[in-house]
């Protein structure tokens, strides 16, 4: 078992004829993910790098049984691509696109609420279940199957912890990048709930960052519902207030959203706190008794 994606995942790539979409569709296929094809409106019926291309997501669902959408559509049209996938009944939508206007995501979130679809991201590296399916832009080769569930707002910092774990011979059940934007589809709490229920996951590594209150909400949920050990790191301890640190959502606004308050909340909830990001792998090893 694992969460969100596995061998049964059948991916349709929205924006497959774009540079990023084409490149990563091929990387996902190389990893062993079933990529059934892609969607680019107006290019339906063509073949791109061996992938069939459809005009609509609904066609990819009807003709190829797609059950997961991976989105590389440019920011101005990405929220619409999310809604199209949800309207086509795709249960899992992973949006990589960075730079979507907040107002578009507010509307897309509202649209999704009336469907059964789950959105991961946007502005995220995607989801990987090592050895089964890679649905995103992460380097597949650094991952190993194993017992640690990883959930993070950041991309490369997730690769960093995965690298530290794999070097110690500790694999991962599933790694989920929830994204660095202010409005995202799936929260820490949603992923924590899935990991808590997943029999393959023995420990959880949570990587937060400044801005918003997602880590505080995660802390509340951990205290009340998570029995598995949680190791947590929050980056941005040295970030100045009022400045956006790369991610649209990484900003200390009005004195709120600091790393210190998030770390306090997570520690009080029983998570094992990592202060030095170079120690993330070692700390997970310790809580696993390795």
């Amino acid at each position: 078992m694992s969460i969100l994606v596995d061998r049964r995942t059948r991916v349709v790539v929205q924006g497959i004829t774009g540079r990023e979409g084409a490149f990563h569709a091929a990387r996902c296929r190389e990893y062993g993910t079933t990529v059934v094809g892609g969607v680019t409106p107006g290019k339906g019926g063509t073949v791109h790098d061996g992938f069939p291309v459809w005009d609509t997501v609904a066609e990819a669902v009807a003709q190829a049984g797609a059950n997961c959408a991976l989105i590389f559509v440019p920011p101005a049209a990405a929220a619409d691509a999310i809604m199209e996938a949800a309207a086509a009944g795709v249960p899992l939508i992973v949006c990589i696109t960075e730079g979507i206007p907040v107002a578009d995501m507010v509307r897309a979130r509202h649209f999704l609420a009336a469907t059964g679809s789950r959105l991961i991201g946007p502005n995220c590296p995607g989801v990987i279940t090592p050895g089964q399916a890679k649905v995103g832009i992460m380097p597949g080769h650094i991952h190993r199957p194993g017992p640690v569930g990883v959930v993070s707002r950041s991309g490369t910092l997730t690769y960093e912890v995965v690298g530290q774990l794999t070097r110690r011979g500790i694999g991962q059940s599933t790694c989920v990048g929830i994204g660095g934007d202010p409005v995202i589809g799936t929260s820490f709490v949603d992923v924590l709930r899935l990991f808590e229920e997943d029999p393959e996951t023995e420990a959880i590594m949570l990587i937060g960052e400044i801005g918003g209150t997602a880590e505080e909400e995660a802390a509340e949920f951990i205290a009340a519902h998570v029995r598995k050990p949680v190791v947590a790191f929050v980056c941005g301890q040295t970030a100045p207030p009022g400045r956006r640190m790369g991610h649209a959502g990484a900003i200390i606004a009005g004195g709120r959203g600091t790393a210190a308050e998030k770390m306090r909340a997570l520690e009080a909830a029983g998570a094992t706190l990592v202060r030095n990001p170079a120690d993330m792998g070692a700390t997970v090893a310790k809580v696993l008794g390795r």
Partner: protein
Amino acid sequence: MRIHEYQAKALLRAWSVPVPAGEVVDTPAAARAAAERLGGRVVVKAQVHAGGRGKAGGIRLADDPAAAERAAAALLGMQLRTPQTPPAGVRVRRVLVEEAAPVVRELYLGVTLDRARATPVVMASEAGGMEIEEVAAARPEAIHREWLHPALGLAEFQARRLAFALGLRGATLAPGVALIRHLVALYLAKDCTLAEVNPLVVTAAGELRALDAKLVFDDNALFRHPDIAALRDVEEEDPLDVEASRYGLNYVKLTGDVGCMVNGAGLAMATMDLIKLAGGEPANFLDVGGGASPEQIEHAFRILASDPAVKAVFINVFGGILRCDRLAEGVIAAVRKLGLQLPVVVRMEGTNVELGKRMLAESGLPLVTADDMDEGARRAVALARGAAA
């Protein structure tokens, strides 16, 4: 993106939110002429992006045109230092001359995104003129909130509830409800992330006026608002930040002496934290992104090294899409081209790491390589200290 108060007020006026009559000027003589046209008492306000201008002496009352000229002469060209500016302050290049009407009540009205609910929220408080964060901390019950429906916006009854919460009754109720709805309309139409009127005042004549206004726009939505994008004032930003934005780099200048270059925002923040843990101070935040080209690496390096405070550079990259050999290529080219004298510590991991390390070693350049990021941060901090001593 932030804009000036005078620009925000022009937008409010266009959206039927009443603002005091006023003119923006850049010479004392023009301030005098503006005061003559406005007649009576005026207020002269320094136009800089930072808040906290009042306490810093950036806002002055003038009883007549001659006093307005003197106030403008004092403000124009001064380095205004507030808690929100860099330590050296920011130069005042324009002042707003406005009519000063007698004020009976000061209120707060603001629209912003509620991230947890994923929809905008309107906040209203009778405690105007104070920072809303201070009110929220001290007297949370003094703030009334109404959330927009994600698709339908703010309903009339919600605007009424906000107006009642502001104590607007009788003749001010209808104008108050209209003002609230107009501010929300502006927030939505222009993709704001903050539309704040603080204070919103009731004048002695019983009229509502937006005495101060702050609008912040979603950078990601500027592509569909060329009129708003044109309001950007690069003079208010750090020149290195502006330079970096030209090359699609995320750069934020900080106050330390260890420059850092990282791929990915989270790892970049974590790298700053590591430098601090190693006893140093980061000179900047710099995220070159997931797929940086050797040219972007070169620009990033040049920008980073052009900060005179930087005494050592720490490059921390986890190669995924950005391959380590391409990083090495960019770093080697930049160091050669710039004839860089600064010590440089490189830590890289991930795709093609062995090739990248070999390229660095064979370049003959005095680059220090580190095997993990903790070691890299410690060595960079030690080198910066050595250089400073």
